């Protein structure tokens, strides 16, 4: 069975929907905003900015009454799912057959967790809001999606840090292959709450303010000092190709396969410096999928400007694809921040032949990474896209996508 992406919904900083995502990646001009530091969590001199979704646009997809109990994550996820259906030319709640949902998240319900903890700590357990608690579980977005689109099939939430997007893809494809769902919404969602932001900053994960006060995610760049924290969601609708063709529909991209591996030698909260085991697993994945490194003509990676992470991922990519013959490497996190939606949306758009501008934030190559990300020159649409992610703690994941079908 061939699996295709018949629709994509995107709720990202600076982009709601396919067209805006295309413009965003083409213009490559991210606009960070100040994170709310009024609670006093943040340290002096640390990161103060993030790339955040303009949630004022929600009304185009979800009424305030429908959304009143939803966390931000649920809202983003539901909007992106409705968009994905729309993009595929299908109507939620009215399609025959079973719709399943697989969502991934790195940080879960950050805002709600923060609020509830504050309620418990500052006011006492009896002050905990019941409605907030129902949204505090990591699977709340997936459950809200099911309610919004009438998805009665399997409803799974995976959480494997930044590799969650690959875990979700793998599970979603599996559901279709086993014939237990007729279509699957596969996506990722994350929030960027002030407490979470301050914690990531304390861990040294976020881009530090530069001399002019700017904070920039600089993938593979010698000046890189961390990621841009970001929120958002991206949801794809996966279907068997023949079903889509039978109804005369088109699809954005094909999913050829997804795989994951783990390096138990990596530090618990880091990447380490040894790409070997992860590279070996990626190589095995390509062999299993009968894809030679030579045919890969685009790489979409998770690098976002955190040196240890970027270097490990770069070395892994170079080890497998060969130093002398790297295809163009895209780093969508530079445009929309570090989270799974960037990678998922970036990969689907890349596979569909969208134009990507020069990689924002990149200018001075980091020799230890040894990758020069895409500089914005015009490229022919790719045949085979390799998606990669290296998460802290040792998880790594990858997926192969190919061009879709425009009708």
């Amino acid at each position, binding site marked *: 069975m061939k699996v295709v992406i018949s629709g994509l919904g995107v709720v990202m900083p600076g982009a709601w929907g396919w067209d805006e995502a295309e413009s965003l990646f083409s213009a490559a001009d991210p606009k960070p905003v100040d994170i709310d530091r009024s609670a006093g969590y943040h340290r002096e001199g640390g990161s103060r900015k993030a790339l955040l979704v303009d949630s004022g646009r929600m009304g185009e997809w979800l009424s305030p009454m429908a959304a*009143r109990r939803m966390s931000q994550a649920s809202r983003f996820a539901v909007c992106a799912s409705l968009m994905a259906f729309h993009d595929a030319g299908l109507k939620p709640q009215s399609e025959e057959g079973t719709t399943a949902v697989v969502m991934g998240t790195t940080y879960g319900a950050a805002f709600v967790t923060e609020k509830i903890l504050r309620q418990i700590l500052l006011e006492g357990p*009896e002050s905990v809001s019941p*409605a907030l608690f129902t949204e505090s579980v990591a699977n709340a977005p997936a459950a809200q999606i099911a309610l919004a689109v009438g998805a009665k099939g399997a409803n799974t939430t995976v959480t494997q840090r930044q590799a969650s997007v690959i875990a979700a893809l793998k599970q979603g494809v599996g559901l279709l292959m086993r014939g237990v769902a007729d279509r699957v919404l596969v996506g990722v969602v994350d929030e960027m709450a002030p407490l979470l932001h301050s914690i990531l900053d304390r861990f040294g994960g976020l881009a530090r303010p530069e001399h002019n006060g700017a904070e920039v995610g600089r993938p593979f760049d010698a000046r890189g000092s961390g990621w841009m924290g970001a929120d958002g969601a991206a949801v794809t609708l996966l279907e068997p190709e023949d079903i889509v063709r039978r109804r005369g529909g088109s699809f954005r991209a094909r999913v050829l396969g997804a795989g994951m591996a783990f390096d138990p030698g990596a530090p618990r909260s880091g990447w380490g410096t040894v790409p070997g085991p992860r590279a070996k697993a990626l190589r095995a994945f390509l062999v299993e999928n009968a894809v030679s490194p030579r045919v890969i003509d685009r790489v979409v990676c998770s690098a976002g400007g955190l040196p240890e992470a970027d270097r490990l991922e770069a070395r892994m990519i170079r080890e497998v694809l060969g130093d002398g013959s790297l295809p163009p490497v895209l780093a969508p996190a530079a445009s929309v921040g570090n989270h799974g939606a960037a990678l998922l949306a970036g990969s689907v758009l890349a596979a569909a032949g969208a134009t990507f501008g020069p990689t924002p934030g990149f200018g001075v190559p980091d020799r230890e990474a040894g990758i020069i990300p895409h500089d914005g020159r015009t490229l022919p649409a790719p045949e085979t896209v390799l998606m990669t992610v290296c998460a802290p703690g040792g998880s790594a994941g990858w997926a192969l996508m190919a061009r879709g079908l425009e009708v």
Partner: protein
Amino acid sequence: MTQQELIRERLKKLIIESLNLEGMTPEMIENDAPLFGDGLGLDSVDALELVVALEKEFSIRIEGEETTREAFASVSAMAAFIDGLNE
């Protein structure tokens, strides 16, 4: 405004705020309209949410599901219930 009217006003604002009824104003909630099921269409989680909000706002303790169902039937019922507790 009478004492009862003041309480009802406060309650309407509380309902809107604690249940996140965006776009609603106190004027849109009738004193005797049913809050649950038909009417405003609130559900069991909303009821629990209101309990927490009322306990905080009026420094009272609300126990028992039976009590809640009767007391929360409408804004007027809620106001009477609170009045009763304060005596």
